[in-house]
């Protein structure tokens, strides 16, 4: 059986903020979710530039906290497929307890990351959040209303010192 090519662009060890302008229209669910657990779901082999690579398929159980785009209601449980590389690489992975904005494709309660290389804004990882603000700024001024709305909604969920420009109330 021939080995399929890696789906999408292989990022290697490079990572940056997800491209909201590209991902929002390509996803049918953009939401903030809390990861409840991770299960193994077998291995898969893809070729990357001629080299066969093994990836561990994982299935995260998560609860939708807020929906930016899509029809899944807050509080709903979903399952999210992602790939864990066998050799060190910067693919988007999920971990138990994580609170993140996710760009997803799927139906019913089964989804996968829209782009295995970059589909997550980890709300509890300041280092990763460092690059998201300029991306949201660009997306918020997009000509696509969906992209605009998603970007502006996500910005309100960022920690105040990072993205939404709001200062926490005192007193």
């Amino acid at each position, binding site marked *: 059986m021939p080995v399929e090519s890696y789906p999408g*662009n*292989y*990022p*290697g*060890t*490079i*990572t*940056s*903020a*997800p*491209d*909201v*302008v*590209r991902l929002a229209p390509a996803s049918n669910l953009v939401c903030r979710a809390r990861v409840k657990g*991770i299960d193994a779901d077998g291995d898969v082999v893809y070729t*990357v*530039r001629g*080299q066969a*690579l093994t990836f561990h398929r994982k299935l995260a159980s998560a609860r939708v906290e807020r929906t930016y785009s899509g029809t899944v209601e807050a509080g709903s449980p979903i399952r999210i497929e992602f790939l*864990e*590389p*066998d*050799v*060190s*690489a*910067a693919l988007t*992975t999920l*971990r*138990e*307890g*994580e*609170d993140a904005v996710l760009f997803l494709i799927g139906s019913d309660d089964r989804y996968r990351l829209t782009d295995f*290389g*970059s589909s997550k804004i980890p709300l*509890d*990882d*300041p*280092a990763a*959040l*460092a*690059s*998201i*603000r*300029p*991306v949201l700024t*660009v997306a918020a001024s997009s000509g696509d209303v969906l992209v605009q709305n998603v970007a502006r909604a996500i910005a309100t969920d960022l*920690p105040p*010192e*990072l993205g939404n420009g709001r200062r926490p109330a005192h007193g």
Partner: protein
Amino acid sequence: MRLPRRFVVAFARHAVTRPGYVAASAHTAFASLPQRGRHAPSVPVGPHMNWGHDFAQVPVHGRGGTAARTGGPRSELWYFNGEPGNGAHPTRTTVTTPATRGGTTFRWDVIDGARQVELVGGGSSSSLSTGWRNQVQLRSRQGSSGEDEVRIRATETGVDGHVMASSVYQLGVRTPAAVHRIGETTAQVLGARLSSGAAFPPRGFPVESGMAVSDSDFMLPRADETGAERTEEPTAAPKSLSSLATTHSASSSWGYETRVTYQVLDDKGAVMTGYDVNECWSTGVVNDTRPCDWRRGPAGSFHVAGDRFDDLIGGESPGHIPAPTAPSGGTTRVQHWGQQWYVGSLTPGRGTLVQTNTLQKYRDHGAHESVTSPLGLGSRIGTGLRRFFGLD
């Protein structure tokens, strides 16, 4: 010589200092080139400026009632070593010059910068007649060196063969010239049992007192943090930038994960946004210790929607030799190889080369060492970028 009734001419700001142009004609009006953004000279943008075209057009009344127009680039032209660029960084652009009346024809000449641009659609890359069409397409051939040295002349000729108008447009060809490092973080991908977002400084990895991890997010590097030749000799720890926060922890998957953050600068020293970046392995793997069975994955690429990207250097998965460890200030080298960074393409090894370095893996952290960026210091970068890197 019969002078045209209406002689429209435009000059780049520096062109007025050229004797040949100053003496061109008593009917020639001179004006400074209005630009904006980072190309902006000290000339204010006039009220008649129209940025709705590819090149600005400003009517100016000169001596003797003649009219003049100055042109300045609105959109930018980029060069990525032959790669096609993208919407944010086009490698082609269209120049439009106004037509004074119907029935006239247009000729275009690259009068300066023929190495940087070519005219598309004709037998000659530097001269082209476009007939009644008052537009021409430019394609980049080479990046500028921090200057706007390309000048294009558009000449409009009437049906009787006389020159009706002539305009000169000026632009530069932007190109990525360097990357600069924002910070280096040895980060832990926490296991599920640890609280999310937690980070702690182990011995040998000082974090400035009172500085939270998030403090580093929007800091701009100080001049002394942008040196082109920075090595990461870990005498006690990976180099810790004094004004940037550093988080230190371990990875449950790889032992450790080191995050090196970069921005890309163009030939004028401006930070780029919305670009493709790729890495390329320039050598094979060289093991520094034996036995060693650490693996190297394929090189990757990424479309950076914002202005910065990270290189995540991980150790190895459990079971490999030597066993990776959590960051502890160690100096045990495991393996290294040559790494190159290109901008302008998602294909490894294609685009504009902006940095070379050695990717060094230690048992407890990773590093970019022997960094060279920008490349070709003497010739490829402009004054602004040399100043940025403290080379002037």
